């Protein structure tokens, strides 16, 4: 080592990942020492890795965390630089707090050095993984962990020497995550349900439409019934007469049925003949039948009688004076009505549509209402989440301000260690946003009063005025969560 020239020394150091400054008379010894240390460290690290691998093969799960200690680039491994009793938290905290304004990434090396310095001072090779358990390492381990996200999981999984704050910060974040999660799941379910309900409703609607449209089999039925008429032969009673009379009656009834059906259909579908009702007066019907078939009124009456006496559904309703009462004798019959009005396709379609719509209307409105509710709920949830985020941002800013104020007071730049709540508000929120942010601010103040242990809310006299103030209670330097 001593025989190395300056360029060689420089090269050796660079090979091990360390960038030395100028090698002058005063720095030469130091760099030689450094090189020695680095070489030793590289050697021990290799041995350590081999041992870890062996252990890993034996116990894969448990060792995986410990295999991670400082897998970092060589630049950080100055564990052997100062083997003296140099491990003190205070130094790093003080120096850090003074230089807080510098960009954090600009000082990666010193912090890691601190961590490894402390580590080296109280361990030997074998117990390297165990140094995680040392309580004093809380901050350092966390610092180092926060720098390289890869190491973070291993740090989190390590023993719980970490500051409690980190846990609590993860807490509210986790809780805030859970709430939208449940909300989202509910949203998804609700929207899917609504979709299926709408589709189902559509099909029901189409089904009703179809049913209302077609009843082509009805007249067939009535005609079949009519074929079973008992014969009423007026003049003669022989076969031929009976058959002929039967046929005539059939024809009469058929005509009557048709007539009534068309009249009823016309009535239903726009009523071009201006009928008063679906029920056709007996005289009118009789007249029509007489015109068409040339049969006498007696036959007509006979037909009516038969209809009355028959139990089967012929498709013709006989109505008396009083519509609710059923008619028993022919004399009481006032008008005739078709039970199956014959309507055109267009008319039938429109009627079916109307019926389907009115039947379905209630469900439709229900669905529309639920959709509206869903949209409203989504909007509300989103708004709540945003508000919550805004509140946490504000809380973070407040903590920073209060802490800075305290540090300034320590450096004799402020008169009091506490700062008025309203002053902080006016510092953080510009005048035009104060009304808008009022809610967020109030929630943040509430949160601080209940959930932040490092800030005390007190009442003091500031500049002659009594006001509520926040005071940073100086805990140990573990608790700085964002630095």
């Amino acid at each position, binding site marked *: 080592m001593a025989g190395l020239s300056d360029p060689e020394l420089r090269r050796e150091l660079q090979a091990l990942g360390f960038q030395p400054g100028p090698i002058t008379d005063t720095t030469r010894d130091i760099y030689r*020492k450094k090189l020695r240390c680095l070489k030793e460290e590289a050697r021990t690290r290799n041995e350590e890795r081999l041992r870890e691998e062996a252990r890993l093969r034996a116990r894969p799960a448990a060792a995986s965390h410990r295999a991670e200690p400082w897998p970092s680039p060589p630049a950080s491994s100055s564990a052997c630089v*100062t083997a003296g009793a140099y491990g003190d938290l205070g130094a790093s905290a003080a120096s850090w707090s003074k230089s807080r304004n510098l960009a954090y990434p600009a000082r990666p090396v010193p912090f890691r050095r601190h961590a490894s310095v402390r580590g080296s001072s109280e361990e030997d090779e074998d117990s390297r993984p165990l140094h995680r358990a040392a309580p004093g390492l809380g901050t350092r381990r966390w610092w180092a962990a926060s720098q390289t996200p890869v190491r973070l999981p291993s740090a989190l999984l390590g023993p719980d020497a970490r500051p409690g704050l980190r846990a609590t910060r993860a807490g509210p974040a986790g809780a805030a995550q859970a709430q939208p999660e449940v909300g989202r799941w509910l949203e998804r379910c609700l929207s899917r349900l609504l979709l299926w309900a709408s589709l189902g409703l559509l099909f029901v609607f189409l089904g009703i439409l179809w049913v209302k449209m077609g009843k082509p089999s009805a007249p067939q039925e009535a005609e079949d019934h009519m074929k079973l008429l008992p014969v009423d032969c007026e003049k003669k009673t022989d076969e031929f007469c009976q058959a002929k009379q039967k046929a005539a009656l059939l024809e009469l009834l058929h005509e009557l049925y048709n007539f009534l059906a068309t009249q009823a259909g016309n009535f239903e579908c726009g009523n071009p003949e201006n009928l008063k009702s679906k029920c056709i007066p007996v005289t009118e019907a009789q007249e029509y039948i007489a015109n068409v078939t040339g049969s006498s009124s007696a036959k007509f009456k006979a037909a009516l009688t038969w209809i009355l006496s028959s139990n089967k559904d012929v498709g013709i309703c006989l109505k008396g004076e009083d519509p609710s009462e059923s008619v028993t004798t022919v004399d009481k019959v006032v008008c005739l009505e078709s039970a199956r009005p014959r309507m055109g396709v267009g008319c039938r379609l429109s009627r079916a549509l109307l019926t389907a719509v009115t039947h379905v209307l209630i469900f439709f409105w229900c669905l529309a209402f639920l959709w509206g509710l869903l949209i409203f709920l989504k909007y509300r949830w989103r708004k709540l989440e945003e508000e919550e985020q805004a509140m946490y941002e504000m809380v973070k800013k407040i903590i920073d301000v209060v802490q800075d104020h305290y540090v300034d007071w320590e450096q004799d730049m402020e008169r009091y260690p506490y700062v008025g709540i309203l002053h902080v508000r006016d510092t953080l929120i510009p005048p035009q946003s104060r009304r808008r942010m009022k809610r967020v601010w109030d929630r943040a103040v509430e949160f601080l009063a209940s959930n932040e242990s490092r800030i005390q809310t007190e009442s003091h006299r500031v500049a002659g005025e009594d006001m509520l103030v926040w005071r940073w209670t100086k805990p140990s330097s573990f608790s700085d969560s964002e630095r």
Partner: protein
Amino acid sequence: MTTSQKHRDFVAEPMGEKPVGSLAGIGEVLGKKLEERGFDKAYVVLGQFLVLKKDEDLFREWLKDTCGANAKQSRDCCGCLREWCDAFL
């Protein structure tokens, strides 16, 4: 972490020609030793700090080797110099 008056005094203004004993952590004994080695002014020690690229560990190691400073003394000196650099360099 409260700093000493010496520290505050040093960091408050450019060091100019201040002697090495005005550095925080460097008392009479250490100051004399440093002066024997040629570091008679604070700015020379600053020079050494800068030449070591403001590396804390290396500087403290150097201080220990050069004048036998203990942990606290070297920490104070290093912190003082670093803060001075932050403010004025």
